[in-house]
């Protein structure tokens, strides 16, 4: 029997659990989604993460945090991993882990960067590169719950080839009522777009975000520099700092 987390309650489960890789999906040339089967998974809230731990034959251990990118499906959870050049963990997760292999999981963890479905405030999601992962969990959870909370996503990527979940996002903009998506391209703009390649700036957030008077909740996730630039702009535009929730990933380039 699958159990789901009680909304608004954090599931408390300490320690490491042995999970199994059951499926792998390519998202881009450098990122893939891993579907893990975790025994007795208690469910999780959109935005929470898990810690994954690898142990080498000599006993050396390395753990990293990864956002869960989809609502739980029974004992199955999804994490989306971007390959970090010279990374200690991500190259192994992307190339070395085969379907059927085991990996240790701790979680779900994190109570800060979470969208709660009971919150009626409109939501702005701002993702840079792999920072889309926890935001996608929120988008998918919103639809699954039949929520009518208006969502806007601003997604900054290097080029069209770097968009995670591209087909699904196109479909959701059409079908999930109340979801808008705007893209910012930092290096290469698709031919169909009139925009120029640029890093996200005041105009993008002003045009595609919500006015501060609506008191939206803003979730910003991506590389450190990206998150700091975006959250500074949002605060300068008049959003209360406590309504700007941030999650910084390591260097992934957006």
């Amino acid at each position, binding site marked *: 029997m699958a159990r789901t987390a009680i909304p608004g309650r954090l599931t408390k489960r300490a320690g490491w659990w042995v999970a199994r890789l059951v499926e792998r999906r390519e998202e881009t040339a450098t990122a893939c989604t891993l579907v893990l089967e975790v025994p007795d998974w208690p469910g999780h809230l959109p935005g929470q993460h898990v810690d994954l731990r690898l142990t080498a034959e000599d006993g050396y251990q390395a753990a990293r945090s990864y956002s869960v990118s989809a609502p739980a499906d029974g004992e199955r959870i999804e994490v989306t991993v971007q390959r970090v050049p010279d990374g200690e963990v991500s190259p192994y997760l992307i190339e070395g882990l085969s379907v059927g292999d085991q990996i240790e999981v701790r979680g779900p963890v994190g109570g800060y960067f979470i969208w709660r479905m009971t919150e009626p405030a409109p939501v702005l999601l701002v993702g840079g590169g792999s920072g889309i992962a926890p935001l996608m969990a929120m988008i998918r959870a919103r639809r699954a719950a039949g929520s009518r909370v208006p969502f806007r996503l601003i997604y900054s990527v290097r080029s069209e080839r770097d968009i995670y979940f591209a087909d699904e996002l196109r479909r959701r903009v059409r079908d999930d009522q109340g979801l808008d998506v705007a893209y910012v391209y930092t290096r290469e703009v698709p031919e169909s777009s009139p925009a120029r390649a640029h890093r996200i700036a005041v105009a993008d957030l002003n045009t595609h975000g919500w006015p501060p008077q609506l008191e939206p909740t803003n979730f910003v996730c991506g590389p450190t520099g990206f998150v700091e630039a975006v959250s500074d702009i949002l605060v300068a535009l008049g959003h209360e700092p406590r309504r700007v929730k*941030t999650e910084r990933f390591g260097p992934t380039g957006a």
Partner: protein
Amino acid sequence: MDYVDGNMLAGPLQEVFAVDLTTATGRCASCGQTGPVAALRVYSNAPGVVARCPSCTEVMLRLVRTPNSAWLDLRGATFLQIPMPAESFTTPGPVTM
């Protein structure tokens, strides 16, 4: 030196505390800035984890995990204010109805 943020402390601190401390508000003992633990700058390639104030970059929290214990040094934080669910207070002593 690259850092991530206090969200990553959720897992390591969950081993020690019964509540999620990343939603707690902490005050920096050095500059007095308050903010969520989730917004601290976390350097995890030190021995253990070091979390610094995003405003003045002084160390607010150190956590070192050894095989049989966890060392937590909070001298850089004057307080942590932890959101708790509303609960009816139980007063010590006999209950008078």
